[in-house]
């Protein structure tokens, strides 16, 4: 399926895939797809940054290639690596049978011994892939600099093989939780979009799209309670993912109303910090009231 040409179409398609994108996000994605620029998504935890890429890939039948960043990630894990163990065995086998001619040696550095990692995969898949570079802020800045090079040309040079250039560019989505400041050069390569918490009405809609079985009445109450929680000055305010989890938990337990009792029992689905739990329990009556 081709990528769409208008914001409305893109929004509708994403909705089919269970993702409600607001106008800003849809515009940014559309521009990114037509200009072949990566998108950098920042925002609070649990507002669906990663989900965008997954849904985009699913809806348009692209392959999702995910590169999860972590401290110390290097080219071996992001680009490619030679399968050294196999190479070594092959060398032994060849030399025992006295077969080590030029051709055999060349084969040692062929596709058979090359372990592809996400970035190389994405370059080879071209526009048949959605490349998700998740939590780029967790990688160290050396990696960021390297990424910059790949993202600008979409070509990868392997000394033993040569340069592999993408025939067409994959859609690229980077996400960051802002645990550290990204370098300006990387930001400039990307389109930027900030995803904030959605308004209450919209959040209800999102939950109902993700959890079609949920009761609307209960969902409204839960969303209202979550919005109160976000106002509470918690260390880790709950995201949309937590709202969905909470509704799911309550649904599983067969609750039909968000009573202080029910909320108290299931609070662990939304709040994952002890101090925050205490604060929420103190204000439980207020959180669940006004339903």
């Amino acid at each position: 399926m081709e990528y769409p040409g208008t914001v409305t179409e893109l929004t509708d398609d994403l909705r089919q895939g269970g993702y409600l994108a607001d106008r800003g996000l849809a515009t940014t994605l559309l521009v990114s797809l037509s200009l072949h620029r990566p998108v950098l998504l920042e925002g609070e935890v649990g507002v669906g940054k990663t989900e965008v890429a997954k849904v985009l890939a699913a809806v348009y039948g692209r392959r999702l290639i995910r590169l999860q960043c972590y401290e110390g990630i290097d080219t071996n894990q992001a680009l490619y690596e030679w399968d050294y163990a196999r190479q070594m065995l092959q060398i032994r086998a060849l030399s025992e049978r006295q077969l080590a001619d030029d051709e055999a040696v060349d084969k040692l550095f062929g596709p058979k011994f090359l372990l592809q990692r996400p970035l190389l995969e994405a370059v080879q898949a071209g526009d048949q892939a959605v490349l998700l570079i998740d939590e780029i802020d967790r990688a160290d800045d050396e990696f960021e600099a390297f990424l910059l090079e790949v993202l600008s040309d979409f070509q990868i040079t392997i000394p033993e093989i040569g340069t592999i250039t993408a025939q067409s560019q994959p859609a690229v989505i980077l996400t960051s939780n802002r645990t550290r400041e990204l370098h300006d050069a990387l930001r400039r390569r990307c389109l930027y979009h900030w995803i904030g918490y959605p308004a209450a009405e919209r959040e209800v809609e999102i939950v109902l799209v993700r959890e079609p079985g949920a009761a609307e009445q209960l969902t409204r109450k839960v969303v209202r309670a979550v919005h109160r929680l976000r106002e509470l000055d918690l260390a880790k305010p709950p995201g949309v993912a937590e709202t969905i989890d909470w509704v799911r938990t309550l649904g599983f337990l067969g609750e039909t109303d968000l009573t202080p009792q029910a909320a108290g029992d299931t609070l662990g689905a939304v709040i994952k910090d002890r101090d925050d739990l205490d604060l929420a329990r103190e204000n439980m009556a207020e959180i669940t009231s006004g339903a």
Partner: protein
Amino acid sequence: MPDRAVAPFAGVLVGFARELRAAGLVVGTGDVLTYCSAMTPLDPSDLVDVYWAGRATLVSRHEDIAVYDQVFRRYFLDEGAPGAKQLLLPALASALSEAGLVMPEVSPEPPSDSEEKPVLGWMASDVDALKHRSFAACTPAELAALRRIMTRIRLTPPRRRTRRTRSAPSGRAPDMRRTIRESMRMHGEPAELFFRQRKTRLRPLILILDVSGSMADYSRHLLQFAYSARRAAARVEVFCFGTRLTRITRALEHRQPDLALAQAAQAVVDWDGGTRIGQSLDTFVRRWGRNGMCRGGVVIICSDGLDRGDPELLAGAMERLSRLCYRIVWLNPHKGDTVNFRPSTLGMMVAAPHIDLLLSGHDLASLEQLANMLPVLN
């Protein structure tokens, strides 16, 4: 490249970008080109598209969004706005509500007054005497001399091992790549085994400086260190507080350190309100600490510990901070040269259990001591 349909609007878009630049955003020519190209799949006469395309292409960090909104409003929406005349604005009101544009109130910038003039031409004749003179007792000329000496002190945070590895003759994991490469020379006979060892790197350094009243003088000297630490390729973050906390790391990149601090002081100090250490540290932990800024880092707090806020808040914030970061160093100028310093203020007493190293930082000698102890802070 922007196509013809966009061409009539290009002037307006470029003008808008210029306005943004004037407002302090970093907008390159390349960004403007992207902005114009972005209008091709969109509708340049639809203000909502103009807004979002600009936000995606011209803004690259969250802090800049507020400024962008302001300029956008001024350029496109205000009466007699330069952009408004040239664009067809269909159903402006509905467009605005759809996009959910929330325009922040513009608070007037506090006027900046120029801080102390640099005093030049004074040579440090007696460095030793100067070393032990409290900053508070120094004349401007002496301070300038001290500053020159301080630029030579290097502040190097302690190191930690990273997950990144490098090839080494010994280590835990074998370096297959190198071993194979070397064995090629020996006709595939793995003769020598190479290993990978984990690299080390400098821990991040976070300065949290009290800039209220008399503390400002002491804090200013620490800023000098922020520079030297950055030169050593460490990540350095600088915050200052009085009644509120502000992050001045980015401001320091562009401006004179003194000026940045003075401006920050104007923003955060409510002169009658006293110092709110607890509140400020709590803000730091919640907004930045929790996001991982100080994880594994060394936090240096410079304050006299005179807290007007709730001591429980300070205790809670310090406890959380100590769990988040690697070490906490507290500089209290009131400690002076006393060896067995007992904190007298409530704030210091509450914070004391979580402090790993308490120094004075009131004169050059004590700052040298800090510079010496920091690399070996374990």
